[in-house]
């Protein structure tokens, strides 16, 4: 028998023991992870940084960010249709029943999932049945590197409408501020774009006939009527998204913690006047002959006016400020039998999403987009509200110079 021991039997026993150990370790990976609790970075209700223990109930596994609320990818490829590759798998340690991310990438993807799970339940509770047209899980890409993208894309987030509705959170390079993945206001802003896309923009027949030239033109000077239509939709979309971000995060200064006061668009202040239709189209007269030299020689005031006139975020911010004022004064109509159980921000979010379908219906009837006024959205959302004099005065400040009487002139729009 001792002969038999010689070279192979003992290693074979070693192999069997190893296989048993590997099986044991593999099979017990998901222990206690059906509703995992993670300690993640969190911006609390007062805008303060903290760590919070969050239990996620929609995940299939604690070790993969794939659940009913979202599918999170980390530094994914994009094939033009959707993200490709494997779903993010965070690296974790476990303290009792609590999972701790052991690197910032893991903490970031978990925090991103946590936001979308929060929205999954928030919108089930807050939005009226049938108002939301978006599907779950949301598809989200979190980036930490700028490979294959321009450095200009850093410190930003984006919603890509077609065909699946993707949310991208770009690399964040400001080591002194809160990254966008932790900023529920910014993520709420991007999430709103999905609502606007599914309830309004993608449903408009006129959008489907737009050319690449129209789309490209709408990003700068709206040279065509189609581009002007897209420009207006983008302005309204961005403004309402800012308002929704503030409502769901309940933090009107949500942008400041990530972008700093110099770059953030403050919402909790009185609006400035919208650019008039004429101002929005003013660039058409300048751009065809505009050269780099002319641009450099342009007086600073004139240059600022030009940039402001075509920036959808700056124009949209005025709509957001008007929205915020009405929400903050709790003057949106309380929709639904359970409205009393919601706070003013939740009631406002409910109203905003509820009105999107009607907004689409109203826009569908518009045939002469070239003569559409940017103030139209202000009229649509505010003219039928029973606003206090104080709130009405704030809202009226958002109207362009063509509508000095504000809401009172909405009958003509």
């Amino acid at each position, binding site marked *: 028998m*001792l002969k038999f*021991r010689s*070279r*192979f*039997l*003992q*290693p074979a*026993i*070693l192999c069997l*023991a*190893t296989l048993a*150990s*590997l099986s*044991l*370790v*593999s099979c*017990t*990976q998901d222990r206690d992870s059906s509703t995992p609790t993670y*300690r993640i*970075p969190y911006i609390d209700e007062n805008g*303060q*940084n*903290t*760590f919070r223990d969050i239990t996620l109930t929609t995940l299939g596994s604690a*070790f*993969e960010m794939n659940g009913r609320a979202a599918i999170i990818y*980390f*530094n*994914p490829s994009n094939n033009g249709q959707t993200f490709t*590759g*494997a*779903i*993010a*798998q*965070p*690296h*974790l*340690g*476990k*303290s009792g029943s*609590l*999972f*701790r*991310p*052991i*690197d*910032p*990438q893991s*903490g*970031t*993807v978990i925090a991103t999932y946590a936001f979308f799970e929060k929205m999954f339940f928030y919108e089930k509770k807050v939005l009226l049945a049938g108002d939301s047209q978006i599907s779950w899980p949301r598809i989200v890409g979190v980036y930490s590197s700028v490979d294959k993208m321009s450095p200009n894309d850093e410190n930003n987030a984006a919603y890509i409408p077609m065909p699946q509705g993707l949310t991208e959170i770009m690399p*964040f390079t*400001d*080591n002194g*501020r*809160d*990254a*966008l*993945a*932790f900023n529920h206001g910014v993520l709420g802003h991007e999430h709103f774009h999905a609502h606007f896309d599914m309830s309004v923009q993608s449903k408009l027949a006129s959008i489907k006939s737009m050319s690449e030239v129209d789309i490209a033109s709408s990003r700068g000077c709206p040279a065509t009527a189609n581009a002007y239509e897209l420009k207006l939709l983008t302005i309204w979309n961005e403004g309402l998204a800012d308002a929704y971000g503030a409502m769901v995060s309940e933090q009107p200064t949500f942008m400041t913690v990530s972008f700093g006061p110099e770059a953030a668009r403050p919402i909790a202040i009185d609006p400035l006047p919208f650019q008039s239709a004429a101002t929005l189209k003013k660039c058409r007269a300048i751009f065809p002959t505009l050269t780099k030299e002319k641009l450099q020689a342009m007086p600073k005031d004139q240059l600022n006016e030009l940039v402001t006139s075509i920036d959808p975020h700056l124009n949209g911010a005025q709509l957001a400020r008007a929205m915020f004022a009405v929400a903050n004064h709790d003057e949106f109509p309380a929709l639904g039998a359970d409205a009393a159980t919601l706070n003013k921000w939740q009631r406002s979010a409910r109203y905003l999403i509820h009105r999107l379908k009607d907004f689409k219906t109203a826009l569908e009837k518009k045939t002469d987009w070239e003569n559409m006024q940017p103030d139209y959205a202000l009229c649509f959302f505010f003219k039928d509200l029973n606003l206090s004099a104080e709130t009405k005065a704030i809202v009226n400040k958002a109207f362009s110079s063509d509508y000095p009487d504000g809401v009172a002139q909405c009958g003509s729009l």
Partner: protein
Amino acid sequence: MRKSLVALLFLLVAPLAYATPEMTIGTGLDARIGRDVNPDYYSSQAFGQLYGEYAIHPWSFLMELEFGQTNGNNGNYSVKNSTYTTMAWARYEPWYGQLRISPFAGAGLGWQFHDTESKFGSARDEGWSDGGGIAAISGGAMATFFKHWNVESELRLAKFQMQSDVTFAFLLRTGYTF
């Protein structure tokens, strides 16, 4: 059943009676290549190692203690993680005594712990966490020069309880044998 277990134990222990035990202590470097948070990609991490080995050739038994540290951030969220790994190995040299450099195969079990310090702006969280069990197999070669200088090189395949995929590792070890 009991007879089988006794026979098994005998098979494992019998060769030890024919050999002179050796002790080795030393240090090593462990380069691990594991799945990134995006599992389509791999990332590497280096660990320093202290080890003690008790050899009754062709068998040797190894105890390891490893330490590695990572630092990273996303905005003002930063994580400094210190990983401690301890593993016990049994290894077998099928051609012991026949070759100057002796190949071996081994199997090991271990456990991993993390000491994680996270900061998010002014907020801070620090604590130990359990990194879970490890089961691994390895293959490599060892040699002893000038009677006392032990050198080993090894490739490993490890399954960590907290990760879904296997981790590859390459190790270099050197120590004093007495």
